[in-house]
Structure formats: C-alpha cells, structure tokens
C-alpha cells in the first residue's frame, strides 16, 4: 500500500495534497498496489472525492484536538497508519517538512524531500529531487524497506480519474500536544503564493510601494499571487511573506512575471522552476533575460498599463 498524507487548512484539503494524492496513485501503479490516504482533524470537504485522484481508501481521525498541529503527535498517528505502507507520500510544504523527517526516523524509512518526479524502479528505488535551490537535481536511492517521498508543490499535475474513495475512521493512540497553537494569521483574499498557478512579482525597479498598483492589478485580473525580490521586502515596500528566492520562498508556478527585477542568482534560485518566465526590464543586459522565456526590454511604467489593458480585454472577451 502507498499511504498519502492529506493536509488540510481550515477544513479544506490543500491543493498540494491533491497533487500528492495523484502522485501517490501513480507510485502505487508502479508498485502494483493501491493508494490510501490519512487525514487528521475535522474537515468540511467531502473526503470520498479523493477517489477522483486515485485514492481507494481514506483513513480519518476526526478529532477536534488534531486541528491543533503538532508534528510530534501527527508523526505518532501517521506511523500507526503506515504500518503496512511501502511508501508514504507528503507534499513538501510547511506541514510535510515538519512531519516527514520525524516519520523517517520513527518508521526507519529513507526520506527524499523535494521530489520532482516519480520514482525510478529500474535499479532499486531512486527519486529525483531538486538541490542547490532548483539549480540542479540529485537522484537519491532509498535503501530502506519503507520509503518516504515529500513532493515539491506544483511539480506534478493533478490527474482526475473519476472515482469515489471509501472513508473509514482510524483509531490511533496519541497524547496531548506539547505545542499549543495560539493563533493563525492567514493572508486573506489573496492566492497563497506557494500554491499559485500564476505569480506577478516586482523588484526595486518599481521605485516605491506606491507604484505596486500595476503588480496587484495584473495579479487580480489573472487570479495570480504577488511576490517580490528580497530588497523590496527588506525596505518594507512589501510584506516579508512575498519575498521569493534563495532566502525566501521557492516557488514553481506555471507563469512567473517579473517586473523591474534584475534576476540576481539568489532571486533565480527561488523561481527558476517556473514553467514560463516573463521578464519586463528596461535594461537589455539584465541577467534575468537569460532565464526568461518571454521578455520586453522597456520601461515598466509604460509597458505595464498596456499589458493590463490587453489582459482586461482578453478576459472580458
């Protein structure tokens, strides 16, 4: 059996977990077995729908206490559910990164975090992962009987299969959490950066926070998240959680639009896994153009309003 950990926030399954489910179903196919899932806490979503992503059975521990996240408690429960699992799959998001290493120790299963592809079974069990902040890949061979894979968000397509999963309660032993969650502060009304399909990002070339309207307007039209370069966050033009790059968030959207960003190597490290990169910069020598798929050499203040207008037209057509 392949076991997929399904992560939820405020009662809803995260997009990254649907990717993990689809990935887990494909891994199960490779191994000639089935994919099941474990979900902790109370949710609003209909869990039978996980069948649509190839999950045959969902084990749930529907306990309010588990809406308080504690990696130690979660690990203990997942270890019990993973007793018969050959492979356990996580999304390599903040939750996955907190649990997967612990589980690796607890069930003596080698961990590949940041997986970018399905395992290769031609000689042993080898998984490609991103290293050097997306500048390269390493092929990691797992030598333990059980394996754990934490899949990079946005690196595996969700495959709807049509189907319903059986939902069964799972009885687990666990203690009171030692970590108490006091509060959560979610960025409201915006697309979470880590899960966004499209990201519009601004750099120091925008001159000041008062000019960010062109970034947010385009983002709103495209249903995109907004991001920024590090100096922009450091000088408080934009909030810290928007900072992408080597020392910020690493993202891999379908489309990344960089406006007034030079494309320093540390910035690229966080965005170079994006499928399509668009660069708007007035300097033709800006290093970002070397990493881009499309570009305009021009002044953002002249180009952006026209782009926004063209997108508006397209969207209302």
């Amino acid at each position: 059996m392949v076991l997929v950990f399904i992560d939820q926030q405020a009662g809803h399954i995260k997009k990254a977990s649907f990717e993990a489910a689809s990935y887990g179903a494909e891994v199960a196919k490779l191994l000639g077995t089935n994919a099941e899932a474990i979900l902790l806490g109370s949710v609003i979503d209909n869990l039978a729908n996980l069948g649509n992503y190839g999950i045959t059975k969902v084990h749930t521990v529907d306990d309010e206490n588990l809406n308080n996240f504690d990696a130690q408690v979660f690990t203990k429960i997942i270890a019990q559910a993973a007793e018969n699992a050959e492979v356990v799959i996580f999304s390599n998001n903040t939750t996955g990164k907190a649990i997967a290493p612990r589980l690796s120790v607890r069930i003596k299963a080698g961990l590949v975090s940041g997986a970018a592809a399905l395992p290769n079974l031609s000689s042993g069990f080898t998984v490609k992962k991103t290293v050097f902040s997306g500048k390269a890949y390493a092929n990691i061979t797992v030598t333990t009987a059980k394996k754990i894979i934490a899949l990079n968000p946005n690196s595996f397509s969700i495959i709807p299969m049509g189907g319903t999963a059986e939902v069964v309660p799972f009885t687990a032993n666990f203690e009171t959490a030692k970590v108490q969650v006091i509060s959560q502060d979610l960025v409201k009304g915006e697309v979470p950066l880590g899960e966004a399909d499209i990201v519009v990002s601004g750099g120091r070339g925008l001159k000041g926070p008062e000019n960010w309207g062109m970034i947010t307007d385009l983002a709103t039209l495209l249903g995109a998240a907004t991001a920024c370069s590090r100096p922009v966050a450091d000088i408080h033009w934009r909030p810290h959680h928007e900072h992408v790059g080597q020392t910020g968030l690493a993202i891999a959207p379908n489309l990344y639009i960089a406006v007034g960003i030079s494309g320093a190597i540390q910035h690229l490290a966080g965005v170079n896994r994006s499928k399509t990169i668009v660069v708007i910069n007035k300097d033709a020598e800006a290093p970002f153009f070397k990493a881009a798929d499309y570009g305009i050499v021009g002044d953002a203040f002249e180009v952006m309003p026209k782009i926004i207008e063209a997108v508006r037209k397209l969207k209302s057509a």
Partner: protein
Amino acid sequence: MKILVCISKTPDTTSKIAFIDNNTKFAADGVQFIINPYDEWYALVRALELKEANASTTLHLINVGGADTEPIIRKALALGGDEAIRINSENGDSFNIASQIALIAKAGDYNLIFTGKETIDYNGSSIGGMVAELLDLPYISHAIKFDLEGTTATVVREIDGGEETDKANLPLVISCQKGMAEQRIPNMKGIMGARTKPLKVIEPTTFDSYTTIASFDLPPAKAGVKLVSADNPEELVRLLHEEAKAF
C-alpha cells in the same frame, strides 16, 4: 540554559553549479564555501541574542563534517558562542548526520536546539525534524520569531499562506528562517577571540544511512528568450495566451 546551534557548510550563493566524476560529485574546485545562511543569519544570531539577554546561557555550535569545515566553524565562533564541536564524518546522509547530532545533544542535555530551515545545497529541510524525533522532543519548524519567558517559548512560524503563533515548553528543537534575527558581521575582537575558543573534534559513531546520492543532473537549458517590442506589449499577452497557454 544550554543552547546547541547546528552549523553546516554550503557553497557560496553565487557558485557555479557543476558536477564531476560522471555526475556523481559536486565540482568543489575553486568554489568558496560559507556557513549556510539560515544557520548563520538566523539560528546563530538569535541564539547569541538569547545569550546576551541571559549571561548564564551556554552556547555550543555543532557541525558534522570533515577538517575542511573548520574555517567555517571558526567564523561562526567569531560571531559568538562558547565552544564548537565537530563530528569528524563526511559521507553520511541526513539520517546519519541527525543521529550524530542527537547523540551529542542528548549527552549535553541542551534545552534548546536551533537548526537552519534548510541547507541551500541539499535543500533537505530534514535534520531538525529528525533530531527532534531521535530525542523525542517537540519540533517547531520554519520559525520567524522566537521569544522566551522562563522556560516557555512563544514561536511564530511560517505556514502555507500565512503565519502561526505557537507556545511550548523547553526543551525544544527549532528550525530558523528569515525574521528570527538580523544578520551580523563579526568584529575584530570576535575574530581574535574565536582563535582560542575550544573546537572539539569527536570521531563519529557508526549509524546507518537510509539514502545515497546516485547522481546529479542539471536542468535542460532554456531555449532562449523571445523578445517582444516595448511598443507592442499586446503581442506579449497574445503569445502568453495562445502560444504558452499560460492563461
């Protein structure tokens, strides 16, 4: 109070990434190595601040690595800390490294263990969680703020799409990232002082590794940028819509 900070060595952020020996080894020749930024800027500096706030605090640094890591360890000691421990082991995987650290951490009875959020070369984000499980301690990852009152810690951590505030009692394992502290530059006094601080070398204990690196790949090169005239930005929108099918 006793704090242990885990320090790792990584190539400088501007290093050229290339591989040798049939793509099985990182080409380290001519590469400058630094303290992993998360370990230096956030984990170490926050630990130093805690020590400055409470003079009775003991602060130790730990590294699992070869003798060539010592310049990095001395640089970390120049920022502060009482002594460093190097476990003389080079080829273990994350589980092996975590096991070496956990052994020392247990023997030293530390109240607080800080790691970086991840190494910028391996990007494992694993050592902190593994050490915590080996020691059966709570683990708070991706911390952006850490405050201590008595033995109770209040930690703000990054979660998907926002932040979360947690409370927990020591002992704890914490992985640190931006926000925890401001980067510092070692001063002359620190650099001189670091030369005489103890740097203990301990031979490794035999532990398993759960994984091995079979090979490395570089991503395929980009086809090259397609430039659109600044006079016709509408064409860019058309290409993104019709050719790239991005929206």
